[in-house]
């Protein structure tokens, strides 16, 4: 087991290397530079470029980056003077994690609950309704849901209650309150929970047919115990296996949603850094994302062993 974890960490490190290098090279071949907005030309531009080390060959620059990164220093922002990339990225990471975490709760909560209910009430109106919601969820883009949500909860609700219960789609401060958080989380979660609902439902339906469910009933267990302790425990196994992809989906959702609601997280930073040609930041964002995904995939695989005792690494 320990060997397995070490192997996985090695792969993560390798991935980080490849990703950061790839992005670094690509990003430094992009046209334009970060100083355009400052209207610097000619000599002054050359001085600036030299100051930031941008006039050196790409490989040398990457080497500097790498040696710095191992110590946790991801460089300096090109756009905002003096801003260190690492603390910037870490701070925004925590904001994104807040949003992402909320979205994860919505995803799993909604997804599993809907899936279970749809399965035990198969082919009734409950099933059709929940399955339809799931299908709409994973088809419709998250910004549409966000837009609809704002339309309903900010405009419509605001109009009919005279402004009393309106949802304000503007994010104040660095971290959001529950009141501000729930709609972005829902916009992301609606999309990702759709897949979870489908898989949970399909998995439950299969599990309910199994012999050990019949045994559980024959033992005289209460129906709720049978459903949760026996059926769901087993049905969750395939759900856990797609948790990795779900996390990636949530991250994509975070990216989009942050740009809609103006949330100062990594997603917004990513788009900004590209538009402003602040490439050091772009590389930093990519690296953090890759690290996050790698670790969460590892966590998912480890959780797998807890749930299904037949799996051992």
């Amino acid at each position, binding site marked *: 087991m320990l060997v397995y974890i070490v192997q996985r960490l090695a792969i993560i490190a390798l991935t*980080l290397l490849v*990703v950061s290098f790839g992005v670094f090279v690509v990003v430094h071949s992009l046209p334009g530079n970060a100083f355009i907005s400052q209207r610097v030309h000619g000599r002054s531009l050359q001085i600036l470029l030299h100051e930031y080390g941008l006039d050196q060959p790409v490989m040398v620059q990457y080497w500097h980056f790498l040696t710095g990164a191992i110590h946790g220093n991801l460089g300096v922002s090109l756009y905002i003077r003096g801003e260190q990339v690492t603390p910037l990225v870490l701070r925004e990471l925590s904001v994104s994690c807040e949003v992402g975490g909320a979205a994860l709760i919505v995803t799993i909560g909604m997804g599993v609950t809907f899936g279970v209910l749809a399965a035990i009430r198969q082919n009734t109106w409950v099933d059709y309704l929940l399955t339809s919601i799931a299908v709409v969820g994973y088809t419709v*883009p998250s*910004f549409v849901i966000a837009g609809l949500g704002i339309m309903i909860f900010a405009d419509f609700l605001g109009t009919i209650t005279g402004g009393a219960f309106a949802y304000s789609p503007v994010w104040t401060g660095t971290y959001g309150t529950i009141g501000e958080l729930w709609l972005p989380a829902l916009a992301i979660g609606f999309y990702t929970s759709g897949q979870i609902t489908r898989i949970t439902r399909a998995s439950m339906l299969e599990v309910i047919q199994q012999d050990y469910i019949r045994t559980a009933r024959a033992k005289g267990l209460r129906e709720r115990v049978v459903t949760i302790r026996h059926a769901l425990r087993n049905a969750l196994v395939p759900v856990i296996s797609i948790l990795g992809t779900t996390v*990636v989906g949530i991250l994509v959702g975070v990216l989009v949603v942050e740009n809609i609601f103006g949330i100062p997280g990594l997603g917004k930073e990513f788009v900004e850094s590209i538009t402003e040609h602040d490439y050091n930041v772009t590389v930093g964002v990519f690296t953090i994302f890759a690290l996050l995904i790698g670790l969460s995939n590892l966590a998912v695989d480890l959780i797998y062993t807890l749930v299904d005792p037949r799996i051992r690494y």
Partner: protein
Amino acid sequence: MAITLTPETLEYAGGTLAREQVGLWRDGLRRLRRNRLALASAVYLGLLACTCLVSIFWTPYNPNLVNSCPTYAFPGTPGHPLGCDDLGRDLLSRLMVGSQVSLAVGLITAAIVMVLGVGIGLLIGYLRGVVDAIFALIINVFYGVPPLMIAIVLYVLLGPGLINIIIAIAATSWMDMARLVRGQTLSIREREFIEAARAGGARTGKILFGHIFPNALGPIIVQTTYVVPAAILTSAFFSFLGFGVPAPQADWGGMASEGFSPMIAGFDPYILLWPAIALSVTLLAFNFFGDGLRDAFDPRQRR
């Protein structure tokens, strides 16, 4: 205990014993036709394709002409059934033209993904070994980062334009298809008729395309049908985040992005609404059709 069947026993046993044997394709098409949701989706997509073709030559108004109607006009304004946007451009015309981008991105990306994914998947599944190991490594790395981000960076690198959007999206979408085809190849190559073909002296290319590929065709087609809405969705995100086709070309994601502020400010939700509906319905249609295809050709189902 061997049981032999004689004609008399068949009669007396009552009821029918044998089911009508139908070919897989005919059976599948029959089931597909019975799936009303898939049929409705197909009809919608057909209409969409027609609208798209028509819009190449004609739209009610010039979609890029500013001030052809009062800005923020609501639907129902004479001559503009869907209203106008913040620059006074007719929304119906823009919606029609926007379908060109969506369909182009969706279909062309799917075609590229199919060619790339099938080609690479077949090769890897057949050759295995080192090639497979390299592929596994690439896959692992690609899955380590959200594909949307990579696609955006690629697009910025390539420069603006519809073709580049397609290239960027296709470059991050081919892996799933390759994985699927690889899996199919791995299992099909173990079957006896491949052994027979090899023994008969068939060349690798003939085996791959003449034998393995046709047998994997079912899942490939189904997966391709799912690539289309995924690509449209990604391109919508692109446009929404500001990386879409350059203005003034109308495209649904961009229209939605433009429509956000008037909607939030409260005075015109329709600029966002129409492209949002168009996107959602189109995506749903593709997904339902894909589901219908998958269910119809799943050999495990009997009804």
